[in-house]
């Protein structure tokens, strides 16, 4: 039986290959319930692929994922009821306005119409999307798309939020709003997983961190343990073994 003691998310040996390229190789992650978890890694490390497999949007070649003890691939329906997801780069019902998207998805989930209307209004207002009442999602800016995606993830009050790059292309004011919402969600007992490659942001928000590089977990645990004495950025560069370039070559730029 799943209880609150179960981790919010646990993946065991997740693996995914696209053709010859192994995107994710044997990923074990445990996200404690009630934690604010940051999944970091360089571009192409496999963050998006891992999260997609964890929430049931991509079938893994091997391994399993559990959400509050519910197996994502065996008990899909129950697992999906527990999570709100913001995937990176997926389409929305593009020909609807923001309000229509939320109304439509809320009703499709079988929520009561008055609850849907109330939450939709509040979400649009808090995320400052209520001024674009006549704009279809297809005409939204990248930042607006992120915000409506977050609203979709929050609408049914899930227990776990899985957000892939929630702050990418979001302006500082909106980012502050989103951070506020996520902190309140976590403070109220909710669990959050975000992926990002902005280290400062992860340090600011998260209490748990997982570092992925080349499809493998290279470090995971409480933020303080992973970053050690320095900043998370220094620890990250050390962990992924990257050489911070940009100092040599390009001599013609300065002439």
């Amino acid at each position, binding site marked *: 039986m799943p209880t609150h003691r179960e981790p919010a998310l646990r993946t065991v040996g997740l693996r995914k*290959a*696209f*053709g*010859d390229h192994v995107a994710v190789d044997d990923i074990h992650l445990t996200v404690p319930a009630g934690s604010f978890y940051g999944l970091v890694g360089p571009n192409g490390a496999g963050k998006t692929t891992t999260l997609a497999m964890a*929430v*049931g*949007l*991509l*079938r893994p070649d091997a391994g399993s994922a559990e959400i509050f003890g519910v197996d994502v691939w065996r008990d*899909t*329906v*129950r697992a*999906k*009821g527990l*999570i709100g*997801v913001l*995937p990176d*780069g*997926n*389409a*929305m*019902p*593009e*020909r*609807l*306005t923001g309000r*229509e998207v939320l*109304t*439509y*998805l809320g*009703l*499709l*989930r*079988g929520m009561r*119409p008055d609850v849907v209307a109330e939450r939709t209004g509040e979400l649009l207002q808090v995320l400052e999307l209520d001024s674009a*009442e*006549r704009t*279809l*999602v*297809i*005409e*939204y800016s990248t930042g607006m*798309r992120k915000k409506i995606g977050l609203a*979709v993830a929050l609408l049914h009050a899930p227990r776990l939020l899985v957000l892939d790059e929630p702050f990418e292309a979001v302006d500082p004011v909106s980012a502050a709003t989103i951070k506020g919402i996520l902190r309140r969600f976590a403070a109220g007992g909710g669990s959050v997983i975000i992926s990002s490659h902005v280290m400062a942001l992860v340090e600011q928000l998260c209490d748990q961190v997982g570092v992925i590089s080349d499809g493998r977990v290279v470090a995971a645990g409480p933020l303080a343990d992973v970053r050690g004495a320095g900043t998370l950025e220094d620890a990250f560069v050390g962990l992924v073994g990257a050489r911070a370039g940009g100092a040599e070559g390009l001599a013609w730029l300065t*002439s």
Partner: protein
Amino acid sequence: MAHLLTPGPAALAQHMIRMRLALMRNSLRGDNATNLYTYGSLGLILAFGTIAVAVLWPAYLPITLALWLFGWIFGPILIGGGSEALRPEYFSMLPATPGRIATALLAGAFAGPAPAVNLIALLSLPVYGWRFGPAGVLIGLAAALTTLITMVMISRVIVALIGLFVRSRATAATVGIVTGTAIALCSNGWAPVVAVGGTDTAAWSQILVRVLPSGWGVAAVEAPWPLALAILAAGAGVIALLLAAWAGLLARRVVSAARGGVPPRRGTPRPFPATGGARIIAAKELRAWWRDLVRIQLLATAFSFAVVTPLLLLALDAWVMVPFTGLIAIVMAAASSANLYGADGTALWLTLMIPGAERADVRGRQRAWLLVVGPAAVVLSLAGALVSGQTWAWPWILGLLPALLGGGAGIIVLLAVTSLVPGTDPHKRGGNPLSTGADESAETSLAYLVLIAVPATALPTAGAILLHPWAGIATGVLTGALFAWGLGRIAYRRLGNHGIDLLNLMKHGPAPQAAEPAGADLPIQHRIGVTISYTVAWLPLIPQGLVPMVMKIFGIEDRGWFLALHLPPVWQWPTIIFMIAVGLLMYGYAILIPMRLNSPPSAATR
């Protein structure tokens, strides 16, 4: 020191040509390569056929060249606005005038297979000129070049116009109506031609095909040389005008924000009905039908084809098809809705993340499609039957109407989940609002599949009507309901089991599977065979099989270009049956071979 020098026109053009060739080389894999070889060989056959026309039947050369021109005009419309290998957007930051970029892009546009094939076809002009001596050959050569450039330019200007001006429902519907009419002319255009006796060398038609840009070359070759030079000069002037127009259009396109095919709106949208399940999906879908220019264009194509095709036969005073306008509209509308999930792109993830929403999604889409197509089809059917006064047609209409509507509603959702053709996500589509970014030949194959599958669902009803005229109504309602329910059920079950695979097919393309066993892909000779079958199978089946059959049944005398009707009576029925059989066999081959050769690996992924 900033580098401020702009490359000269010749260098710029040279770079464009190289870039275009590099793009082509890199895309020559898998299906793209097959398509290139198939269409390339078909094009070469047609090109050498054109030269043969110039040698053997020179009187028909102008009309043959006019067909090439129509190809350049309607080709881009038919395949959704034309695929542009070199998009003007790529070069918007080059420090050069629009005119110079347009010239260079034009040079790039010629570095492809289609212009090369067309140039071979246009070599018919110097061949034709041989009859008029060496000067004729020279003029023919010059005319071949100017005609080629004019044809390509006309095509480019049309693509640019579509990209720039299809921004409203009215323009999208107009493009759809033009397309539907063009397809109707391809299938039944022979009727008015037969009616006005277009096969003789009547003066007006000879003048018409010479006045078209495609015929100037013939006119120049035939003219005395001062006039010939004048015609060639006029041709060069037209090219300059087209180039200027194109440059202007490109410049406007690059600075006008692409809106992804969204028509303008006024006022706040009507609120969603407070309901759930399939109804809420249907409400969403109805909004999509009304707000998506691609869907509006496709519907307009379907309905205009359905209306124009029977009307063309009226030229022969044949009213046979008029009562069936609505039925044709159903089949065509189904064919243009076959890629329902592909058209939405990765938005499918939302359905997949909502527990148990797959069933509502499929049922809602069926409901919305029936609401969009059904009433119009019923009105067209009733109007067609009443106007034509063909009372014998009533049982057929009343029986086939529910059968086809139900069959269509079932087939489209089934194929949408079994044969999805991935496109570009709607919000990532480029400057061309009518292009979905999907592989056009795959989408066309899917449409053909619907064109066969939907009428097939009505076969039991047709049989019942033959047994007893009024037994068809009950059978039609019954089979229609059964197909809509049953195929929809298969569809949502498959969406439940394979939804994630569909989502990732749209997100990442079909690459991972194709990379594994090399045998999973069709061998090249089968792929060429399948494409050729899809392209030409309608010829024996419809105009050489079904049409003469109908004409023989109804005792229509005109023999037209129907092979069977020109033969002695003993051979007529065997020829018709042979032609139908050949057509069906080609379709069967084209559909079954890929299924057979592809099924083992896809079954293994379950």
